[in-house]
């Protein structure tokens, strides 16, 4: 446990030392401030547009932090050969993967918390109906989203360089968001083996779209019902467990 914490702390220090996070935070403040000050044909009290844009910005920036920080961990350690003294500690490869994952989640969750706090301030201070349950659900779903993204990126970093991993993760995000409904509809509309095939594919794909509460928050819909929130949390943990288990298994067999 101590070794995992030590690896995670290193990543956390990296977040503090590097400028990426501060740049994104300032950019977000500037963009949201600018949009809030915009006037559209003298029509007052326009809120949903800022809520919508702000939420997208929070998720996108947090996604960037998670992907960039997680994608560079293993390839950088291998390239600079710092992995050898690390594994000689002694530290099992599974623990190394777990440490990198925990660090990735911590870093992105802290960044997300700060981004989300800024967003929440705009949400609360702006006019219109406020739904604090939904705002809290948005936070929980955001953290779960980052857990999933970090696990996925750590898993992929077994095979890919940092740049390829970042590109593929972004592509996966777009594709999954756009096409998982196609799989769902296929599973529901067709009958027999085709439906089963669609269903299997649907279960295998990591459902990053589950975590997106943008429309609910921006347009003031009702919060997600409680059992679904719990189901999403359980789903995230189960999926991450399998991703990390296989990541560890592959990394264990990898020649360094």
């Amino acid at each position: 446990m101590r070794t995992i914490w030590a690896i995670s702390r290193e990543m956390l220090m990296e977040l503090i030392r590097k400028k990426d996070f501060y740049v994104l935070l300032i950019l977000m403040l500037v963009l949201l401030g600018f949009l809030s000050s915009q006037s559209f044909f003298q029509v007052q009290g326009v809120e949903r547009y800022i809520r919508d844009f702000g939420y997208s910005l929070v998720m996108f920036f947090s996604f960037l932090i998670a992907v960039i920080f997680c994608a560079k961990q293993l390839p950088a350690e291998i390239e600079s050969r710092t992995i050898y003294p690390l594994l000689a500690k002694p530290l099992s490869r599974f623990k190394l993967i777990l440490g990198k994952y925990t660090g990735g989640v911590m870093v992105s969750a802290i960044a997300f918390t700060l981004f989300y706090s800024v967003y929440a301030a705009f949400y609360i201070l702006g006019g219109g109906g406020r739904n604090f349950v939904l705002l809290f659900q948005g936070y929980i779903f955001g953290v779960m989203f980052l857990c999933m993204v970090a696990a996925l990126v750590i898993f992929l970093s077994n095979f890919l360089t940092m740049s390829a991993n970042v590109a593929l993760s972004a592509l996966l995000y777009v594709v999954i968001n756009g096409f998982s409904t196609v799989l769902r509809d296929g599973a529901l509309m067709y009958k027999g083996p085709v439906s089963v095939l669609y269903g299997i594919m649907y279960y295998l794909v990591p459902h990053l779209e589950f975590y997106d509460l943008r429309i609910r928050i921006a347009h003031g819909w009702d919060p997600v019902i409680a059992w679904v929130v719990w189901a999403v949390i359980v789903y995230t943990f189960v999926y991450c467990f399998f991703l990390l288990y296989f990541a560890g298994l592959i990394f264990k067999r990898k020649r360094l």
Partner: protein
Amino acid sequence: MRTKTLLVILFWLAATILIAPRVDVYDHTYVSARQTADMPALVQLLGEARSIVSNMSLLQADLYMHGGVGHFEDEHGIAIIDPENLEEHVDKHKEVKAPEGYVALGEMGYVRPYNILLRMSDLIDISEHIHLQGEDMKEIVPWLYYSVKIDPHNVLAITLTSYYLSEWFGKPDEAFGVLRDGLKNNPDSWQINAELGRMYFTHTGDYETAVRYLSRAYEFLMRSDHDKFEERYVLTYLIRSYEALGQEEKTLPMYKRLNELFPQAAIFQERIRQLSHG
């Protein structure tokens, strides 16, 4: 080597950013009104893509109108074609009744209760169909604004924006501003001329100006492809403007034209008879 590559990329990027806004593919006399210099630099940089972005912004306004969820296109379609069938049609979108041992997933179908991911997906997604009402309508304004600003030649965006500003948000002055700017960029648009005419008729009582714009709109309309409903729209406001000015005799040829377009409408025949007999 890396620094050199980076410098080359930066140079080309800078060159593109500096040159792209200066390129105006419409730089000829007919469309001399298309002054790119009036647009913000970022919009200039979009080039011809601004037409696509502008339309996307308009679609976003439509999405906001439906609470961010979108709408059943066929539902709106049938509402226009046959309002009597609307209720029956909407019924088709009601939830499917699941057989025993299954759970219904909205209108999509039904699954076994243990098919948890599909059920979660159904409950996270929003499948309700709403239209914004009252105060909430203002939420579409930013997208209309961007649609108009990004592409000053998007006539649909201009007329829609002015309509919502004047009729929904009580901002006729802003609506006039949008239309006047729109007319500068699209002087031959019958839609903008017609909308200006309608605005003068409805909001100012300046019927002479209304007649001027509507006559011009009719002239441009006749030069372009159009349907009989568009023609009726312009003629109706033109007739009403002439009638408000007390120049009813000028409306006779218009009623005759409307009668040609809609021979079944007894009201036009009646009016022609009245005007013909003084």
